């Protein structure tokens, strides 16, 4: 039993590295009040939330990154710092994107609640990246899920958006139910909910393989749903197609990042014995071959994502399947189960943030004007809006993973980590999948530049601010394709997940 005085002092010391999260909570509360008082001022909530994100990011930069708090249920380390920065960058880009989203402005009514839920969701994600207690992980995942259910149906008069949110909430409720059942079984076997204590228990005591396998698989199902891995991907295409495109972009990067952060931390803290050497392969506690389990998940995910993407006609749906495929590539980095693999996952996420959000902004800008996301309607875009089409192509090249773009560097590091661990068959499957993905990305470019030249010559006007945002993202993908060492160094320094005594 913890004494009351100790509890208070523990809380006080914990609050020191909980400041970024507290700022998000304060922003959330402020947004509710601001929305009530200053309704008339357009986008006031957007500015307040950007301010909150920036303050939270600054506090994040200057906080101690070696802290265990709240009686060992929440940590702040370099690993969670990396993911938090990715989440904040995504948030800011999404808020910028929402200024121009036609569907949100026309059908969303007052956008105040939109930003409130966005901030609430990012608070949940911040908790997910640092949680080391199974109940906190579950609560944090639900915090972000419940906000995202509402956000994906935010334009509630649009039929497909309400359908998307129904499918999302049903699949989400089922997989979180599976996860909590798995957690309860694991609690029964180990007698604790803290990841670190679970590992300590497993290191000394022997548990029966079958119940242990069932419970960890059920917990894995919860994570697999968040990262949209096969066989928990069914919601992805429908939700991505139906939801407002800003939310689609948000789900495809930020909530995936949070899911991967929790998955990696669970594997490292609860299921692997910690050795002294930094770069060593994690020794897993039980007799289950975790590398094989995750590698099979990865192969299924990327193959299904890439093959089904081949015959998609809706660009949002195509990007949904492409994001499933990318989750498969990232799972390859998880499957090697060592710090090199973790670093490659981090690199991938940073690059993926730039290219994926950029691609979604391009789709949004064009579909704002032509009122459709069909690939056929993108025909002749290269002549109607040469700049956007060119930048879109750069981002697509990066999504394929061709040099000299950031996508190539990201894939290169994943494959290097996989080969380093001796999983040659996995790397071969990954390369074959990259080749398949070439087809559907190039199909978009073919439509933009080769087809439909004389169909419609009217130019598509895009506001200069948006052109600059897309230009910056595309330029960064090219820049990090050539000058990538800062990201690599940062990822390597962030790859070791904090383990405490």
């Amino acid at each position, binding site marked *: 039993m913890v004494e009351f005085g100790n509890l208070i002092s523990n809380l006080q010391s914990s609050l020191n590295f909980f400041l970024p999260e507290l700022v998000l909570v304060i922003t959330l509360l402020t947004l509710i009040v601001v929305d009530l008082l200053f309704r008339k001022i357009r986008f006031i909530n957007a500015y307040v939330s950007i301010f909150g994100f920036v303050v939270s990011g600054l506090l994040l930069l200057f906080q101690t990154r070696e802290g265990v708090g709240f009686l060992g249920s929440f940590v702040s380390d370099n690993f969670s710092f990396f993911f938090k920065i990715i989440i904040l960058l995504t948030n800011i880009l999404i808020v910028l994107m929402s200024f121009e989203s036609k569907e949100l402005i026309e059908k969303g009514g007052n956008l105040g609640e939109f930003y409130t839920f966005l901030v609430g969701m990012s608070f949940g994600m911040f908790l997910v990246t640092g949680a080391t207690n199974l109940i906190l992980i*579950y609560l944090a995942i639900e915090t972000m899920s*419940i906000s995202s259910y509402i956000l994906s149906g935010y334009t509630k008069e649009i039929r*497909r958006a309400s*359908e998307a949110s*129904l499918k999302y*909430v049903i699949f989400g409720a089922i997989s979180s139910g599976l996860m909590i059942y798995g957690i309860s079984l694991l609690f*029964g076997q180990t007698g*604790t909910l803290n990841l670190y204590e679970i590992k300590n228990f497993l290191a000394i005591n022997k548990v029966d393989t079958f119940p242990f396998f069932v419970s960890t698989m059920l917990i894995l199902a919860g994570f697999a749903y968040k990262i949209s891995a096969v066989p928990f991907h069914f919601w992805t295409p429908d939700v991505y197609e139906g939801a407002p495109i800003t939310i689609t972009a948000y789900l495809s990067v930020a909530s995936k990042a949070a899911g991967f952060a929790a998955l990696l931390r669970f594997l490292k803290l609860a299921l692997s014995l910690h050795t002294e050497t930094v770069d060593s392969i994690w020794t897993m506690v039980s007799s289950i071959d975790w590398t094989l389990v995750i590698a099979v998940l990865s192969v299924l995910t990327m193959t299904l994502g890439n093959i089904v993407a081949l015959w998609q006609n809706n660009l949002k749906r195509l990007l949904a399947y492409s994001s499933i495929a990318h989750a498969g590539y990232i799972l390859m980095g998880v499957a090697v189960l060592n710090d090199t693999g973790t670093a490659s996952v981090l690199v991938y996420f940073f690059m993926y943030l730039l290219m994926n959000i950029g691609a979604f902004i391009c789709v949004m800008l064009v579909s704002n004007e032509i009122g459709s996301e069909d690939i056929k309607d993108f025909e002749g875009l290269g002549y109607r809006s040469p700049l956007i089409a060119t930048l879109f192509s750069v981002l697509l090249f990066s999504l394929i993973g061709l040099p000299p773009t950031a996508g190539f560097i990201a894939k290169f590091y994943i494959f290097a980590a996989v080969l380093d661990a001796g999983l040659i068959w996995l790397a071969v499957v990954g390369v074959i999948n990259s080749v398949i993905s070439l087809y559907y990305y190039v199909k978009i470019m073919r439509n933009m530049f080769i087809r439909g030249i004389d169909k419609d010559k009217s130019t598509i006007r895009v506001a200069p601010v948006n052109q600059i945002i897309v230009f910056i993202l595309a330029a960064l993908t090219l820049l990090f394709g050539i000058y990538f060492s800062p990201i690599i160094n940062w990822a390597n320094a962030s790859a070791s997940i904090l383990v405490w005594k």
Partner: protein
Amino acid sequence: MGVGLTNYIVLSAILFGLGIFAIITRKNAILVLMGVELILNSANINFVAFAKFNKLNIEGHIAAIFVIMLAAIEVAVALAIVLNIYQNYKHINVDEIDSLKE
């Protein structure tokens, strides 16, 4: 002979199975959500039973309280979404809500 841990686990496993069965077979969105409730409550039974038979470990009880709270939140949001579906479609039959093609 008293009620042992096994009885509780079997009960929760049966509830879990019924929950999965309800989710798979029911077409009405409300009934699917009731299946989800069964799963969450089966986890609750597990938590409390393990806490009872695990030297008064308080964590299990706390976990159960959190799950009850979350179930309430989830149902509130889910019912709001179902209501919205009803306004758009005039029914809540999950099988027929398929305007997004597979």
